[in-house]
């Protein structure tokens, strides 16, 4: 009978699992919600695990149990379940005469709350359809973005117009949402990125080795210690921050990159424009260069992630002085620099924010770079595969090995 409430929670973006629902009924059976305020606390404990969900929860609760009217959802503060809904109900009841004016003196607060709770339970039946107004009232973020999605689709066909750039971004954000790329699940995918290596002083007793040596010693104990396994992952992120071609993906890249920065302690990041020639830059303005030969001196176990749309003029990649920077004196084509990185860092991957379906049509260079680095898109599945690449350290593709041998 509480099903609409659970759906309303979902509409507010709060993950509701079957487990919570079962827990909720279990708690009801135990009689843990004898009145409305306890019900509020109980449901919140069961369903809300993060601060960012508080507001949505309170709105859903208000709408469902207090029958808040569309558009004017009472913003619940901490004591709201004590004063707002309740006191309003009390006033109305007194005004209608169904409670005597001196009810406050005649009944205890507990009795009044109990009555309020009963009424609320009855009313809930009447407001069963009440969950539909969430979204149409224009206050729910969910419904709102739904409207936007429609709007974008209308303009979705002309992708190259500059005026539509902003809308383009939105459209892509929507694409990301449909692949449910969100901060929280991103965190979980990235958590799989690990590099377990022995670290620190040898403190773990190696039991097998100890027994082995002790036996060889004729029973004289010889303790053998080893270093314990710890996560020692080091990560380099190379970001394409140049040019308009990356512009539509700004929000998406920011989200992914932000999550990475939170998650990994040993994270270095550098910027480049379109393709890498000779050096990358440690600042977004690309003023402080860091030569590639310095990068490839780093531990080959370092994981390298390149984020870029790999979309450039073919000359930039293939021709020996094709660098987009006019004054660049670098004579080696971009492709060779990429190969150099790829051959040094076995655990490297290219993340392309552009939707995979558009890769074949957009530029030849996407495919060419895809032959050097394993390339994945910025969806949840794509990042998950990228993490697998990084963990397993896929061997360089056939093509790149040939070139490496020839050079």
């Amino acid at each position: 009978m509480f099903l609409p409430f659970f759906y309303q929670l979902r509409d507010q973006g709060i993950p509701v699992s079957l487990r919570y629902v079962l827990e909720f009924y279990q708690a009801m059976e135990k009689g843990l919600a004898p009145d409305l305020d306890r019900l509020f606390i109980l449901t919140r404990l069961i369903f809300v695990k993060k601060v960012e969900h508080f507001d949505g929860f309170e709105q859903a609760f208000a709408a469902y149990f207090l029958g808040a009217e569309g558009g004017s959802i009472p913003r619940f503060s901490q004591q709201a379940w004590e004063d707002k809904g309740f006191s309003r109900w009390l006033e109305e009841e007194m005004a209608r005469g169904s409670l005597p004016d001196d009810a406050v003196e005649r009944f205890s607060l507990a009795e009044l709350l109990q009555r309020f709770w009963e009424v609320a339970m009855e009313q809930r039946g009447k407001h069963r359809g009440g969950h539909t107004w969430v979204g149409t009232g224009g206050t729910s973020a969910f419904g709102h973005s739904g409207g936007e999605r429609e709007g974008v689709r209308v303009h979705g066909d002309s992708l190259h117009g500059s005026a539509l750039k902003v809308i383009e971004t939105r459209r892509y954000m929507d694409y990301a949402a449909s692949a449910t790329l969100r901060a929280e699940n991103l965190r979980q995918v990235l958590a799989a990125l690990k590099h377990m290596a022995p670290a620190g002083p040898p403190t773990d007793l190696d039991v097998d080795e100890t027994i082995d040596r002790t036996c060889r010693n004729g029973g004289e104990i010889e303790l053998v210690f080893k270093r314990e396994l710890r996560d020692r992952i080091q990560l380099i992120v190379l970001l394409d921050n140049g040019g308009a071609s990356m512009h539509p993906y700004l929000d998406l890249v920011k989200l992914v990159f932000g999550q990475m920065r939170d998650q990994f302690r040993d994270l270095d990041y550098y910027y480049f424009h379109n393709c890498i020639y000779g050096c990358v830059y440690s600042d977004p303005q690309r003023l402080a260069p860091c030569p590639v030969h310095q990068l490839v001196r780093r531990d080959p176990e370092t994981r390298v992630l390149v984020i870029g749309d790999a979309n450039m003029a073919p000359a930039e990649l293939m021709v020996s002085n094709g660098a987009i920077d006019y004054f660049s004196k670098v004579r080696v084509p971009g492709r060779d620099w990429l190969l150099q990185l790829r051959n040094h860092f076995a655990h490297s991957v290219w993340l392309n924010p552009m939707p995979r379906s558009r890769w074949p049509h957009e530029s030849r260079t996407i495919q060419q770079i895809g032959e050097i680095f394993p390339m994945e898109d910025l969806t949840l599945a794509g990042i998950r595969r990228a993490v697998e690449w990084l963990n397993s350290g896929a061997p360089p593709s056939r093509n790149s090995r040939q070139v490496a041998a020839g050079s």
Partner: protein
Amino acid sequence: MQFLGTDKYYLNPELREIVNIAMAMEKPLLVTGEAGTGKTQLAFEIARALGLTLEEARCKSTFKGEELCYVYDTVLRLNDSRFGTGESGRDVNKIWDYLGFGPIGRAFLAEERRVLLLDEIDKTDSDTQDNLLDVLEDGSFIIREINHKVKAEQMPVIIITSNAKRELSDPFLRRCYCHHIPFPSMEEMSQIIRLHYPEVPAPLMDSALAIFYNLRQQGFEKPPATAELLDWLGALLLDGAKPPITPDKIPFLGTLLKRTQDLLHHKGVERESV
């Protein structure tokens, strides 16, 4: 079993309900909140109020989770097997003589219900948290060496605290009840003070609270919290300071502001206001 607060601990009615629901549902309760909101103290007070034994685990970043359940002393056993057990009464053939139990193990093995406090869980790495999850959820762990399952006789009351220095993983949050303790309001704070210093004169209390909450709003790096306030009041009482205390000249300022930056900043503000 109902927890109703104690004479030394002010219990917000909402938190009281939460603790009781968590106990009834046998779910771990994760409390977050600023330092000095009484997160850790909550576990102590529950144990004291209900007359339960407290098992306490202060987490460290090197914890792997297993040592909170049990420790198998291989070295001692090897040593005993080589040199004999002597007078110790241990038997090298019995592994149980070389197994020690950590706080979780003790809480599970106890015949009566206990309170289990996992303090500052966020200090451990996410692997440890995941290991602990299953243990806390099932109320059981396995001693790997002998594949023996230890099952909780009585599910302990589990209180987990976190300073939210690092985010806890979603699966972890999913299996807990989470509650954020907000910083006490001025009224609640005066009740807390009354519990600790029943003899504080009202004028002193009022001016102290006004200064305290004013200081908290100034965006210090380490804003003073409950513990600092209580220390400060204790110092004021010992000194026999008479109200009114003015914001320009706060005695024992060092008990309220701990960081040099904050102290300097405050002095700067003071000078301007003079």
